[in-house]
């Protein structure tokens, strides 16, 4: 299982996820997002545009490392990984 941590910002829109230990079965980041969409319909369009690309100001980390493929979300994940989905900060 892959553990998923979401920025608290998203709980304002998907309160059903707040307080849960989110664990999903997935082989890559795209699979993680599909699993989240199944639990919270609509969240995929918050994280990605309609072409499936990660939105410009959303960051996904596997452990402490930013994913490389923001277009197809093909970075692999394995059991025990922790995936963090956070909003990017750009100063100000």
């Amino acid at each position, binding site marked *: 299982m892959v553990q998923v941590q979401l920025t608290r*910002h998203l709980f304002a*829109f998907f309160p059903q996820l707040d307080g849960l230990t989110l664990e999903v079965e997935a082989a890559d980041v795209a699979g993680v997002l599909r699993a989240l969409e199944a639990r919270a*319909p609509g969240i995929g*369009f918050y994280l990605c545009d*309609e*072409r499936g690309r990660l*939105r410009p100001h959303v960051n996904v980390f596997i452990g402490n490392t930013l994913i490389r493929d923001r277009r197809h979300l093909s970075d692999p994940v394995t059991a025990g990984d922790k995936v963090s989905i956070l909003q*990017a900060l750009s100063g100000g």
Partner: protein
Amino acid sequence: MSGKTVWVATRKGTFKIEKSGGRWRAALVGHAGIGVNYVARDPNTKRLWALLGHGHWGAKLSISDDDGATWRDNPAQVKYPEGARYIGQDMYEDAASEVGVGWKTTVRNATLLKLWVIAFGNDGALWIGTIPGGLFESRDGGTSFELNRPLWNHESRGGDLFAGEGTGETQWFGTPASEGGEFAPGIHSIAIDPRSPQRLLIAVSTAGVLETSDGGHTWRSRNKGMTMDHNPDPEAEWGHDPHLIELCQSAPDHVWQQNHAGVFFSDNGAQQWRKVSAPGEGVHFGFPVTVDAHDGKVAWLVPGRSDAQRMTIDGGLFVARTDDGGASWRQLRNGLPQEAAYDVVYRHALDNREDAVAFGSTTGNLYLSEDRGESWAVVSHNLPPIYAVRFG
């Protein structure tokens, strides 16, 4: 005036304005901290629709069925279909150019950059204008939305890029109003003919006005009589920058346009426009215009100085009203600040209903008149930057 509600979309949430205890009061009712480009009530269903721009999380449609007490994302969101592409113009560094930059056309994949305006046909249809220039329609009350392909594939945009590469040329240019900063066309005005909801006028920044009379199956330009001061050919068919168009509900052939290049009026359904700017009266540049529902020759504007000075004229805020189709204008200043006031009023931030007129500015000031603009009261000086003001 009793019973009137004003909905205000701001950079930081949706506000409901109602009169109680003899004065108008603003209350934050939804989307705290979130950009709201537009909010309006569907007169057919009474549902409220808010067009959000989340920044990090993209553009979303939000709805309320309890007068704004609670909001939720509409289950169906506006999404560009697979294969939707458009021709854009990109600036690039060019050392060989005298000015250091060049322009090239590129074909871009379309994704939703901004929800800008929603309109409601009396046949129940919903129409939504977006950046990058897609018009979306719903025939099932918002259960689903579809891109209007005849407009998207219009010859003025370079033809059908779903099917092939088209002509490679577009007459639709851009607006900097998209949330991501991308320079792309935007549909900000949708005027539906109440006599026939199959007839619509839309306005595009930057291209001009287009009309359909068959529910969106075919579109034609409606820019005759328009003039530009930013094009070597001031009467070119395309390249116009309408800031807003609105038609009269009881006389729909009376159509008003606040354009980048002046104020224009048509009394024949936009078949022919006539410039009715009055620079001597301060009436020329601005963004919003609103038309009386009962008399198509009556309209209100909030002028600015010019495109180079998008602010009030000499620090005094006024609303301009014509009662005669633009032949003459009056400056309405009673109750509005006349010293060191530099409000800018965006295109959707002026509206009227019966004798009431309301407008809001990017400096968070909201003003309301109950006597057709003859006198004004302050509703608030402290709202977030205001993007839209709608009675409903």
